[in-house]
């Protein structure tokens, strides 16, 4: 029997043989798809190539807070506006979801029956209703706000209507750069003070009021400098002119709807992760730290959270990734993100679906891998240091 099979009876050979076969078939499949696509594109006279990136877009994007965009700009610029808008809603969403998630996760564990039940209802509701519906719900609510002519007014400078939230825009005059430098210096020195204080505490046991001294450095010092320099900043107030408010800063309802829906939806998951993390720290830890007389807040901050973080961070990373990818749902409410602008309008105006989709996918991949990379570094830094 063995002699009939020859090479095939060799386990190593068999293993390599089948692996090669699978890779070969896979490569063949890819080749076939690419080949057929290229062939059919050419057959149907559909343009290919990347030169369209340099062509003028021809349409306008109204939500571009970081770059000035005109209809004569290129599709490449449409791409950059989209990336920035995607990053904007993702980053703000991640920050808000983390803060909200941590708070809710802790509240969920509180002994207050009503509070923990309320959080329970919130979590079960928002993680079990499709995100798309939540985005549309928030948007529908926001466009039912008063019309622009009947805007709600707060403190004489904020205006809320279904066109968004208008607020004064700070205009920095010459001299303000000194204030910025002061803030940067303050941040650096707070960081150094923190390190020094830790070392000193390790050595001598003496504590230093790091928190208050940092607050003083970061806020009070630049503020004093600001007034000494004669307040080198003014505000541009929004004014109702014709159809819309002119001037000022505006936050659009499309952005608000995305921000609210994404952060509330993701916070529900994060709160469960946080709860699991805290519960993973054994009860003995808490009791032991109480026994040596630590304050309740210190127990949480110094004993529980650092240990819980080891459990929290890996699933937290995937929540950040989810939130970033979910931001592509902005298309449902016309939020001008990457998928809507470049992967939608540019794609449709140029007809170059494959190129646009490849770029959009590669971009999401890059953003996600970057998030993973930094979260992995952070994760390593909080793990037990085994010596």
């Amino acid at each position: 029997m063995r002699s009939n099979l020859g090479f095939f009876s060799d386990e190593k050979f068999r293993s390599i043989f089948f692996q090669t076969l699978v890779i070969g078939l896979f490569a063949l499949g890819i080749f076939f798809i690419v080949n057929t696509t290229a062939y059919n594109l050419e057959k149907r006279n559909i343009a290919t190539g990347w030169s369209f990136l340099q062509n003028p877009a021809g349409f306008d994007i109204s939500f571009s807070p970081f770059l000035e965009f005109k209809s004569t700009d290129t599709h490449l610029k449409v791409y950059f506006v989209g990336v920035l808008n995607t990053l904007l809603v993702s980053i703000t969403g991640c920050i808000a979801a983390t803060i909200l998630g941590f708070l809710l996760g802790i509240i969920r564990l509180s002994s207050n029956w009503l509070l923990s039940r309320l959080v329970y209802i919130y979590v079960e509701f928002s993680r079990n209703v499709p995100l798309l519906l939540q985005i549309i719900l928030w948007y529908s609510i926001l466009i039912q706000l008063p019309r622009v002519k009947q805007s709600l007014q707060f403190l004489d400078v904020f205006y809320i209507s279904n066109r968004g939230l208008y607020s004064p825009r700070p205009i920095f005059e010459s001299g303000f750069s000194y204030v910025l430098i002061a803030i940067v210096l303050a941040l650096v020195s707070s960081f150094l003070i923190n390190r020094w204080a830790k070392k000193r505490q390790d050595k001598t046991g003496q504590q230093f009021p790091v928190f208050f001294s940092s607050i003083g450095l970061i806020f009070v010092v630049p503020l004093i400098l600001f007034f000494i320099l004669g307040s080198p900043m003014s505000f541009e107030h929004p004014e109702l002119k014709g159809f819309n408010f002119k001037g000022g800063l505006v936050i659009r309802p499309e952005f608000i709807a995305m921000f609210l829906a994404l952060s509330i939806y993701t916070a529900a998951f994060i709160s469960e992760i946080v709860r699991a993390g805290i519960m993973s720290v054994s009860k003995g830890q808490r009791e032991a730290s109480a026994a040596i007389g630590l304050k309740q807040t210190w127990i949480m901050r110094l004993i529980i959270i650092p240990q819980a973080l080891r459990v929290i961070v890996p699933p937290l990373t995937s929540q950040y990734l989810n939130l970033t990818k979910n931001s592509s749902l902005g298309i449902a409410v016309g939020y001008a993100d990457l998928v809507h602008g470049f992967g939608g309008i540019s794609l449709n105006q140029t007809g170059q679906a494959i190129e646009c989709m490849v770029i959009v996918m590669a971009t999401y991949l890059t953003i996600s891998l970057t998030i993973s990379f930094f979260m992995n570094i952070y994760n390593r830094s909080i793990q037990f240091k085994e010596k």
Partner: protein
Amino acid sequence: MGNFELNKSIIWINLLIWYREAIFEKRYLNNYLNGENNMKKLLSIFAVVAFAFSAHAGTLDDVKNRGFLKCGVTTGLAGFAAPDDSGEWAGLDADMCRAVAVAVFGDRSKVEFITTTGKSRFPTLASGEVDMLARNTTWTISRDVNLGFEFVGVNFYDGQGFMIPSALGVSSATELDGATVCIQTGTTTELNLADFFRLNGISYEALPIETNDEGKENLFAGRCDVYTTDASGLSSTRAAASDPDKWVVLPEIISKEPLGPLVRHGDHQWGDVVRWSLNAMIIAEELGITSENVDAQMSSNVPEVLRLLGVEGNYGEMLELSNDWAYQIIKQIGNYSESYEANVGPDTPLEIARGLNALWTQGGILYAPPFR
């Protein structure tokens, strides 16, 4: 022959199978001696080769084999393509679809209407998911050439306009400085809009929307001041408002929007069927043939009438249709004028006068090549 590469590989696989059978099977010897069986096998190979080369038949054959037409329409634009009270698709574009179904099958019900958005319409057509589009689609060079489609004619001459609440007291589009404009993405109107405001040196904020319904919702809620799309679409939207008098369509028409049915580039036979289904309706109006008098016209003494209705000549056969195809279109759908008046004309909620869409003999630019 779109799947030429695939078909080639099918041939090779078949050849391989036959070769293996021929070499390894014991029957081989008998067959060889016998001769007759071998011949059969050879024939079967020819059949396979022939099949592979003819597998990608024309759209007309595909439609005939399937038994119904797949026609891409809007997601609902009253007067052009929208389900009526009984759930039947009705409108100028819907009639276009039905006319083609009648030409192919002699039955106006043999259509499946497939809804497409401004964005999905082209991929839907290019991928073969629909046989044709009759979806308020503007004929432009880039769509005709670069996207690989074939516009077969124009069934509605339109232009882009603006609709605004009458309470705002605006009388011209040049007064729209700073306005928020609702605009359907992925359309020619989006590009025209940018050009118009740039040309006039005024600013605006675009609010991108996907469908006409979304546009309506945002306009009626006041999220945008102005809605811009083809003037016909505006009339349709206005007609759907709870109080149409509260809305005005501004006088400016800022673009040429010849809307027409389109098919995939390269299938000329199918393109001809759709093109002449449309032309037949226009020619019928020219010749004064209506759904009511079409039977009487069968005994007309005008040669072109007799050619159109299939009494004389074999134009139907040329198109690989039955010879009474045009008769059936007129009988079951009506001529262009009948379709127009029933769906978008002055007596409908849309109240669009014939204007450019009148026959060339009546001050419009509707013109079909002669039927001969």
